[in-house]
């Protein structure tokens, strides 16, 4: 009796799902797995970016003469679920490769799965360094500038000031810990005399901002390095602003300038913070960056987030790789991704490094200012990751032997 019902249900499920696979095979399908509900604020702009790229690609005739199609699936932010969906996308839905994920741990699970089963996975948004370094594998490529790169850019700026005593505050999980370690290592290398007088580790999305601000204030740092984001950042900025924590101190904020996090702060955006972000509002007319922003606003009616850009570049990268490969089998696609160069993207030439499968997408760094009651990044520059990466020898040493 136990097994009767379960098998019946399974059989019923099989019947309802079977027609999906039987659909026409005349598109090239990409399996996209993300946390559309659990991280809706980040996943939605990302998905719209992909859709914009798809419209452009398919209006221009698709790839290899066929339309390009993404199958979007929700994994609930659960790595095990993501692996199951990946299996289905590849074996039943006819996807030629996998992409997606914002959370690093889901990205790492998909990466390991791709290597074991011989699939290709393009990690678009996850930031963990280990994805291409200590846990890297030949089947995984990564688009976005990693934690290490962005932290190194902030550390370079921090080293220019005469601040000696630093306090750090970062969410208490792998990303936060990596971001603090990367900042420390880079800053110590550039300026050995700095010391870290306080390290605060609030629980992710559960910060006790008042207490954290008091604890940082107590250590009397010259400068502060912030890794919190989202609601944690909002609470930290509010409590810190009220209690005068940021007065007379330079603050370096990882990702704090990204529209996802900056916009909700409204007129309380912390002026003077040096941050990484995405200043879509101040691109010059006639640049490819500006053209992307205009297209995106025209297509969606919304202003772009950093996720929009990453989603768009994901679509563009995959289309270019398939064109270059001239085929859709995994081996050809992997070969095409290695050293892939795309010349006219919104960030200029996009390239995937052969040595570690990391793209050369960089980051925008600048200072937060208030304009018309909104936080914006001013005096910003776009920095490519060259010069912030560890040396090729170090990278090769970190990657497991291939």
């Amino acid at each position, binding site marked *: *009796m*136990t*097994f*009767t*019902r*379960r*098998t019946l249900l*399974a059989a019923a*499920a*099989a019947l309802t799902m079977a027609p999906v696979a039987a659909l026409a095979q005349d598109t090239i399908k990409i399996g996209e797995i993300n946390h559309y*509900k659990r991280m*809706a*604020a980040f996943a*939605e702009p990302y998905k719209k970016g992909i859709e914009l790229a798809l419209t452009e690609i398919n209006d221009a005739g698709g790839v290899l003469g066929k339309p390009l199609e993404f199958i979007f*699936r929700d994994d609930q932010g659960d*790595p*095990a*679920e993501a*692996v*199951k969906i990946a*299996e*289905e996308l590849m*074996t039943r839905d006819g996807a030629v490769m996998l992409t997606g994920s914002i959370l*690093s*741990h889901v990205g*790492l*699970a998909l990466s*390991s*799965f791709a*290597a*074991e089963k011989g699939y290709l996975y393009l990690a678009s948004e996850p930031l963990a360094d280990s994805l291409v370094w200590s*846990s890297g594998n030949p089947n995984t490529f990564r688009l976005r500038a990693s934690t290490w790169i962005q932290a190194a850019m902030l550390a370079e700026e921090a080293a220019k000031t005469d601040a000696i005593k630093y306090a750090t505050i970062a969410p*208490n*999980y*792998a990303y936060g*810990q990596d971001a603090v370690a990367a900042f420390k290592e880079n800053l110590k290398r550039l300026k050995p005399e700095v010391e870290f007088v*306080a*390290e*605060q*580790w*609030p*629980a992710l*999305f559960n910060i*006790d*901002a*008042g*207490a954290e601000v*008091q604890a940082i204030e*107590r250590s009397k740092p010259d400068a502060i390095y912030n890794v919190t984001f*989202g*609601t944690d950042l*909002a*609470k930290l900025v*509010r*409590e810190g602003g*009220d*209690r*005068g924590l940021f007065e007379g101190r330079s603050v370096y904020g990882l990702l704090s300038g990204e529209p996802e996090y900056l*916009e909700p702060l*409204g007129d309380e955006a912390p002026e003077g913070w040096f941050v990484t972000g995405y200043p879509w509002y101040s691109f010059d007319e006639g640049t490819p960056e500006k053209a992307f922003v205009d297209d995106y606003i025209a297509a969606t009616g919304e202003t772009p987030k950093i996720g929009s850009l990453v989603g768009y570049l994901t679509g563009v990268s995959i289309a270019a790789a398939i064109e270059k490969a001239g085929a859709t089998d995994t081996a050809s696609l992997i070969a095409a991704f290695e050293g892939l160069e795309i010349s006219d993207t919104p960030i200029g030439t996009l390239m995937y490094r052969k040595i570690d499968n990391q793209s050369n997408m960089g980051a925008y760094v600048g200072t937060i200012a208030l304009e018309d009651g909104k936080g914006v990044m001013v005096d910003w520059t776009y920095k490519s990751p060259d010069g912030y990466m560890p040396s090729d020898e170090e990278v090769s040493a970190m990657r497991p032997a291939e």
Partner: protein
Amino acid sequence: MAFFFAQFLTGLANASSLFLVASGLSLIFGVTRIVNFAHGSFYMLGAFVGITLMNVLPGTVGFWGAILLTGLAVGAIGAFVEMVVLRPIYRAPELFQLVATFGVILVIQDLALMIWGAQDRMGPRAPGLRGVWRIFGEPVPKYDLVMIAITPFILFALWYLITKTRVGVLVRAATQDREMVGALGVNQAWLFTGVFALGSALAGWGGALQLPKGGADLLMDFNIIGSVFVVVVIGGMGSLPGAFIAAVLISVLNVFGVTYLPQSTLVLMFVVMAVVLIIRPYGLLGREEVAGEHGQVGAPETPIRPYGRLGQTLVGVLLLALVALPLVVDQFMLILLIDMVVFALFAASLHFILGTGGLVSFGHAAFFGGGAYAAALLVYHLNTPMEIAFLFAPFAAGLLALGIGWFCIRLSGVYFAMLTLAFSQLVWSMAYQWRGLTRGDDGLVNIWPSSWLSDTIPFYYFTLAFGIGGILVLRHIIHAPFGYALRAGRDSPRQAEAMGIHVKRIQHTAFGLAGLMAGLAGGIFVFSKGSVFPTELEIGASFDALIVVFLGGVKTLAGGVVGAGFLTVIEDWLTRLEYWRLLLGLVIIAVVIIAPEGIVGTLRSRWAKLRGHNEEVVK
């Protein structure tokens, strides 16, 4: 000294909102005995409704008026939920209602996303209360002091309501003995609705009051629910002063923890809860639960019997069908079945301890994830062959369960459940924070099976052998003398003791056995997915198992297995749709209302009724 005082004030300010939400939960539990997981959702609704109202109503009056109205609005929503979802199922087995509240969480999450959108909202500032006052030279935000000042009034108002009014007399009477209150002619239904509405309103006020210190976002329901349960349990379920003391205790300890042990933020409150429960098993001001006091409601249970010949034949045929399946279906179907068998074994192990043992564990994922981690750690650090690592999983999980069980088994009911939750959080935080060993939430990856098992079909048979083997062993034990002793201890501990059964020892062994089987499921799991992350140890993972056991039917043999199969298939199907959480929530609520004895239990009683009817006709 000034710094200490300022820290203390920060703690008090944090306690204010926490106390409001916790007091609502405590009231609801005290009267209705519902463990309301959806309480965090009412807190989240309070925040969103509050922001919306504050944007409409201007000025100081508007701000405070908005907060007041928010509570009323959320209270009304609470009353609606109680009447539609909970009222039909009060006579279901104890704790069954928590499944319905889980459905409510999912529905509210998607509705909030539809109405307010995905972006986080900053809360509006309280007019005239921006900035700080200096106390002994330390800056203290003005709004903090207002919140500190408000809380005693709320505590006093609640205390007055409960101790000095007729409503309060009824509430207290219902907390002590709700059947008697009903027998004395009080309309229980409205009393329950009223208390649920009041509790929800308190959560809504908590959400609205914290706005100037934070904001509204779609994750805040889950983010607060952990601390709220901790506060209610430390204070003693159903005790308002207890909730207040616990809220202050937790908040103040948290503030000092942040300063002197910054890494402790994840576990501090669970450690406090575990310590309090070990010393005072019913919380600080809680009352001992007299066994049988809230007893089994509904019809008495018919004793479980092994299947007859027909049942056994059917099971045998189905096993054969499962064995023959790889000949006809595609690879993904097998993957889905592997997932299903793993989850079914996990659920069956919880069902064993919950249904047969009568011990509700909120932390069973500690053993599933613990087993998965045990195997993965061996492979990752020592390159242990897969076969040995796999066998280590149930062994390690069983040991872990014996260890945790030693502390928990002396408690009973909800307190037992909460102590298991606390321990599972400790295990989770170890996996999360001890990066040198576990790599934190980067997880342990590349844990793949040996080459003879790396194809899907061999692994499918491997899963069948161990997964279904485990389920059959558990069922066998239920019908063995050990199982009878366990059931005797559940139904009637005193008689069982009198017959010479050492109830606690039996329960402890059963707890270890359930852990072992969960660990076995974890072992299969880690090699089927190739990686393990702290998500497998989260509260959510424990609740998934809990929900399928209740959905399937606690008082049946096949409940866990059927529930697991049902939920896996439904989820796999629904997550393809955009608003799958809304739909899944509605499906869960519908099942709960249609089948209050669980799927198997309700089918069985329908069947029995039908057959009884036929027999009468024949006569």
